[in-house]
């Protein structure tokens, strides 16, 4: 039987020459890569990396100057309940290897900025041969792609008169760091019972059942995930890191009589299941959400004419604003080839410039594992490129002092500060870990509220305070009268809430840091206090109002 199994003939003298040139480099890397960890996966990865590093070359072409192997072992559990009954239960486990091969040198290499590399499914059991086969095919493909990308890039660079001067890849010292493996650890039966009950509270709880017929959806879910990550590279880095995240949530929806869709979403996020909110707290949260949903249904629609003036954001609402407006812009992403910008985003040319009021400072400290006794989701020791995490002063007294960056340098930032982070199976990019906002003159909630009221009195009008956001729109928004009384309103949208308002409109910040743990693509934490803005536009959201259901819901049991 014929099969395509032709191997390249023994490479000639060119390969030998290359091997000799590369030898010193190989030698130094090897001295650090001999880790003492007895992990079958790491051993198999190292064995294959050694082989590929020594032998992988296409005759007449360049050898890789850098190879990285990453094995992501991802486990998850999710259960969903609707209307008081379990509707889905899913358990997932997947192992993928991601191979990155770089051709060229640290100065100019084959990387494209998209995050290069090849992904392969890896064995679920610890079969070293199967893992090495996956690495073998992924490395082969990644090498061929890198060769192609390198020549494409060199050709593209010919078109530009000037190009950026910073390296394509930063030189970092090798790191050896081994963390214990994590396993999913959650009482599934107990949590299933809780979400079933939580999703049925709209009908079963006597304190809210009077308006049960207005609830259109009621969904509760519990999610759990762990990621055990193995990373080695030809520079000698050996890393085994692990993270976990747990999340319980409730999602409720209704419609006001005029057809406006209304929703409440809540829950808790934690590093371990034991740190999730207790059942009494979860139950209370659902009841509160149901009550506020009903209050929203009955609340007046926000004024039809635009409002420009003070708005007080709770820490919860402020964290959403910061995640939306600030976060991306301090995570350094390289701009397109041939352009000379520093990064992408609003703060590309804001280095050393003021981006926040002078009384505000921001640090990102992934090493901060706990805040006020609570574990933080965005915490880590070593990033996903094998660089130890660093505390970074992002903004000091309002001025942008540093970007968060991984191993792809941008202008003025030649090395990583330990913020190269990757979602499972995905390439690493510059991402925040634990971003903490502080004020040099923090005010108590009472003082903040007084300042809001004094602004209202001064301007002789009502002002606004927002408690919770739903995306970029306010969800629980209060019209605050100068006498301090409050009226819940619905159907509002913010405008002119942008980077200019972050820079110039924040008048005061609270001493009540809110911890926003996000279990999105990557676990990240943002800690933001209440913020009082001087001038934000509040306007009526002009969305189409869909008809209410023609029939009432089916009768309850």
């Amino acid at each position, binding site marked *: 039987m014929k099969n395509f199994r032709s*191997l390249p003939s023994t490479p000639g003298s060119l390969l030998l020459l290359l091997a000799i040139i590369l030898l010193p480099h190989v030698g130094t890397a090897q001295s650090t890569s001999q880790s003492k960890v007895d992990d079958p996966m790491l051993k198999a990865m190292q*064995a294959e990396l050694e*082989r590929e590093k020594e032998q992988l070359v296409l005759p007449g072409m360049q050898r890789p100057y850098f190879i990285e192997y990453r094995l992501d072992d991802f486990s998850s559990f999710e259960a969903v309940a609707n209307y008081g009954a379990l509707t889905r239960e899913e358990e997932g486990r997947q192992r993928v290897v991601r191979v990155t091969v770089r051709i060229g040198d640290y100065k100019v290499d084959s990387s494209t900025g998209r995050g290069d590399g090849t992904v392969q499914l890896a064995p679920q059991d610890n079969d*070293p041969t199967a893992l090495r*086969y996956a690495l*073998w*095919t992924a490395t082969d493909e990644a090498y061929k792609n890198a060769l192609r990308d390198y020549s494409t890039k060199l050709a593209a660079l010919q078109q530009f008169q000037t190009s950026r001067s910073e390296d394509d890849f930063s030189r970092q010292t090798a790191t050896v760091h081994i963390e214990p493996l994590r396993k999913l650890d959650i009482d599934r039966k107990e949590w299933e019972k809780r979400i079933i009950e939580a999703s049925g509270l709209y009908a079963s709880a006597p304190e809210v059942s009077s308006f049960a017929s207005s609830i259109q959806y009621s969904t509760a879910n519990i999610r759990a995930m762990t990621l055990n990550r193995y990373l080695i590279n030809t520079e000698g880095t050996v890393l085994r890191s692990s993270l976990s995240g747990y999340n319980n949530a409730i999602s409720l929806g209704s419609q006001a009589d005029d057809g406006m869709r209304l929703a409440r979403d809540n829950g808790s996020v934690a590093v371990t299941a034991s740190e999730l909110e207790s059942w009494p707290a979860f139950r209370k949260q659902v009841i509160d959400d149901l009550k506020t949903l009903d209050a929203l249904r009955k609340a007046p629609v926000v004024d039809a004419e635009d409002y420009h003036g003070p708005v007080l954001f709770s820490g919860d609402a402020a964290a959403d604003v910061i995640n939306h407006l600030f976060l991306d812009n301090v995570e350094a992403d390289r701009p397109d080839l041939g352009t000379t910008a520093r990064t992408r985003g609003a703060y590309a040319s804001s280095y050393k410039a003021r981006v926040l009021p002078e009384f505000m400072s921001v640090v990102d400290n992934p090493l901060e594992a706990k805040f006020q006794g609570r574990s933080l989701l965005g915490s880590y020791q070593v990033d996903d490129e094998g660089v130890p995490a660093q505390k970074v002063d992002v903004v000091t007294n309002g001025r942008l002092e540093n970007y968060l960056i991984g191993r792809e340098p941008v202008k003025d930032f030649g090395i990583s500060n330990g913020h190269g982070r990757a979602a499972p199976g995905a390439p690493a990019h510059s991402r925040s870990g634990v971003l903490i906002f502080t004020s040099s003159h923090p005010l108590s909630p009472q003082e903040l509220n007084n300042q809001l009221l004094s602004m209202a009195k001064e301007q002789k009008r009502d002002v606004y305070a927002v408690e919770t956001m739903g995306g970029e729109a306010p969800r629980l928004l209060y019209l605050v009268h100068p006498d301090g009384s409050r009226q819940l309103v619905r159907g509002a949208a913010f405008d002119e809430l942008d980077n200019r308002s972050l820079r110039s409109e924040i008048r005061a910040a609270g001493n009540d840091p809110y911890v926003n743990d996000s279990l999105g693509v990557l676990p990240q934490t943002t800690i933001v206090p209440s913020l009082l803005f001087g001038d934000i536009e509040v306007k009526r959201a002009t969305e189409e109002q869909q008809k209410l259901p023609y029939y009432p819901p089916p009768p309850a049991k």
Partner: protein
Amino acid sequence: MSRLPIAGFSASNGHGRAETGRMPTGRQGNLIVSSSKTVSDKDLRQMLIAEAKRQGKPYGLYFEDISSGFAVTSRRSPQAFQVIPLVVYRVFVDGRPDELVRGVSIVGTPQAALTRIVATGNKQDVFNGICGAESGSIPVSAVAPAMLVSEIETQRQAQGNARPPILPPPPAATGKENKR
């Protein structure tokens, strides 16, 4: 037929089938093909050789196994089908041993192909598979004997020319390593 009537057929015959979440349409269940002109495998092979000789061809083709296939059924496109075989032999008229070939697929239009069946084998084989169409992918079965077709169109499959892996595969783990 599903409950969606077509010209000349006003009622379902219990073949409205669908994948989860799709609207049922008329689909295959157990499609059984039988023949009134059956011969033994040995005779069928002789008939193939005789037919090739008659047409002045050096060989006939024997399709032993296929991987998949598809047919275009939309009215805007030509009604054509393609079958991608896995194991195909050249059966020579001069008595040479059969030769395994690769990279050939069957193409044509159903009407033309199905009218050129000369004879069939005397035992039926079962095909269990998944069939995809307007109402999604559903499990189906087909039962049919071998068929000798006097004329069928084939074409070369698109051939990859990607370079094979540069390095040989990693060495298999020794028994010692496995026991750890």
